[in-house]
């Protein structure tokens, strides 16, 4: 049982996107982790598992690392829950990183969870901020938003190591910095595929998550009860189509049969992360607001000046939603 003081260095998992490029979020995390490593007086290490991993090294080296540990093999082309977990766990056991950070993506959240279990340590997902308290035994404080309620929770992992987090995209800034004398450590790939229990039959087909899903959409138009009629709600679908946006809504349109269930935005549905969210005839109950706060810009259109949604909006139009919608449709014709 190794002592907690044996743990050192800040590690960042470098996720590869689409087997062609380094995931931006990983690079952003390197920026923050550079700060942390400097404060610790220790090293920043990038961890890379990929097919032809060498091709990504130059990019990683330009973002502030002191060292890169990498494994290159065709089995590593895609994230694999057995292979990646086993290989990285071996690295953790050998090197004992103090801090281990991941981007908050589907694959990395899964990987981080598995590793946290193996290390019997804590994991904080979707952090919005990181702070290192050197004086408190190199304690990392992470900020996590609570899903329900307008609060931020500050979490630490004082007794176990590594201290692990997955970080939300767009929180930190990349740091274009190339350190001199970067160490590259290549690990020989060694994994017995017989240990994998899931057998893939035949050839998998490429099935991109349709880029037009609600939670990935850049532009979202939401419709609520204030639209009054189904034919008005249908105009939302039309407008969305004409501007390449996605449609969502609140509970009422579903109950009235204007919209399918899976397009519900809010507590019981989807959280959206668009650049722009337009809401038509939505009053703004907390159940819905919870799903839209991550929008960069929110425009609310509602004829009731007291609608709660106006408190959460950047731009407020106090007017008849169907009228405004009609006007927009005239402009954005297909």
């Amino acid at each position, binding site marked *: 049982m190794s002592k907690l003081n044996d743990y050192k260095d800040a590690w960042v998992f470098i996720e590869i996107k689409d087997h062609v490029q380094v995931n931006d979020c990983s690079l952003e995390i390197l920026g923050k982790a550079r700060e942390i490593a400097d404060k610790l007086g220790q090293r920043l290490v990038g961890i890379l598992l990929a097919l032809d991993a060498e091709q990504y090294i130059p990019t990683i080296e330009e973002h502030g690392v002191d060292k890169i540990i990498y494994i290159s093999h065709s089995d590593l082309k895609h994230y694999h829950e057995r292979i990646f977990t086993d290989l990285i766990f071996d690295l953790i056991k050998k090197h004992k990183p103090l801090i281990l950070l991941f981007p908050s993506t589907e694959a990395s959240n899964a990987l981080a969870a598995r590793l946290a279990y193996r290390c019997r340590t804590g994991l904080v997902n979707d952090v919005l901020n990181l702070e290192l308290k050197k004086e408190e035994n190199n304690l990392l404080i992470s900020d996590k938003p609570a899903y329900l309620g307008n609060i931020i929770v500050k979490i630490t992992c004082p007794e176990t190591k590594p201290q692990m987090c997955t970080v939300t995209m767009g929180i930190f800034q990349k740091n274009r910095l190339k350190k001199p004398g970067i160490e590259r450590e290549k690990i020989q790939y060694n994994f017995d595929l017989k240990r994998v229990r899931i057998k893939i039959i035949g050839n998998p087909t490429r099935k991109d998550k349709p880029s037009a899903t609600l939670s990935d959409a850049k532009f979202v138009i939401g419709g609520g009860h204030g639209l009054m009629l189904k034919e008005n709600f249908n105009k939302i679908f039309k407008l969305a189509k004409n501007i390449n946006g996605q449609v969502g809504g609140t509970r009422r349109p579903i*109950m*009235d*049969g204007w919209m399918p269930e899976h397009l519900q935005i809010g507590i019981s549905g989807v959280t959206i992360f668009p650049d722009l969210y337009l809401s038509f005839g939505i009053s703004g109950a907390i159940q819905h607001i919870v799903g839209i706060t991550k929008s960069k810009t929110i425009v609310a259109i509602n004829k009731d000046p*007291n609608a709660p949604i106006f408190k959460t909006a950047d731009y407020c139009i106090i007017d008849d939603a169907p009228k405004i919608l009609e006007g927009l449709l005239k402009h954005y014709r297909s």
Partner: protein
Amino acid sequence: MINVNFELKEKHKLVRRSVRNFAEKILAPLAPIMDREEEFYPEIIKEISMMNLWGITIPEKYGGAELDSINYIISIEEISRICASTALTVSVHNAFGAIPIYKLGNEEQKERFLNDLASGKKIAGFSWTEPNAGSDAKSIECMAVEDGKDFVLNGSKIFVTNGSIASVFLVGTRYQTVDRQKGFTLVIIEKDMVGCEIGPKENKMGMRGNPTTSLYFNNVRVPKENVLGKLQNGFKYAMQMLDFGRIGIAAQALGIAQAAYEHSVKYSKGRIQFKKPISQFQGISFKLAEMATKIDAARLLVYRAGYLSERSKNFSKEAAMCKLFASKVARQVSQEALQIHGGYGYMKDLPIERYYRDAKACEIYEGTSEIMKLIIANQILRGNI
């Protein structure tokens, strides 16, 4: 003084939640349409079957859900909160179809009818009222004359709840030519019997989603095996059926009142006039307080009657009390709800005016409020203080 356990048990909570979910998902979209078009949607018969609501208290071996009276009340209440018409359909089918056949029928009749009734394969309707026999129930003229192994039925019934969707009717009729005061008999009539005709749908003020029709018997030949219980004991059975049936109507009234009240609270918190939500004016908040109190009082009376119905031989007084009170509360609360909603409440876009129209029926059918007072007074003066 009856000691009632005020805590609802876990089972009751679960029943309330499930029936409420069902009503909100399946019945809510249809309720305004059924009221507007005065149509009962036969598709919901199957949905109600899947919920086992056609045989709430009927034992499992006959296909029922075998739940107690409180659960029966809760089920009707929750359906009524969303659609009073459907609640009427379900409660009449249970109280005047499935339950009487279970309680009064012989094994052969139970075998013939009970499973189909509990499953909803056959729907039951209630048929006693005639043009000249409403509150004066004993004045019915419908006549069954013995003829060999059968009897022949002639007459007509009006205001038959579930008329156009039912295939089984419990009919109250005089028997042979015996003296009026005796001789009332309950018979089971099936829709497809020759001479049995279902009349046109009534055009009602409320409960418009419940199909109410007339029923005509033209020399309908009925086997004697279809007599329910003892011959000429029909009036007594009918009164027993009505005691329990009234609890169902009271539950229906509760549901209407509850819906009207909930809407009123929500509306008054959101409606801003004179720079404040109207709930902050005592004129409105006092109304809400009174509505809440009345509904609570009514609910306790109804549950108490339900509780007694399983433990006491004579619960006529309590059943009449709960119907008298709950139906009045439903009318008063729905009226206040309409007032609170103001102009919006008067519009058919909101369900408030429907609650007001639906509520009124509860003070009339299955014994008018005046009859309820008669029953209560008789009980009191007979010594049941």
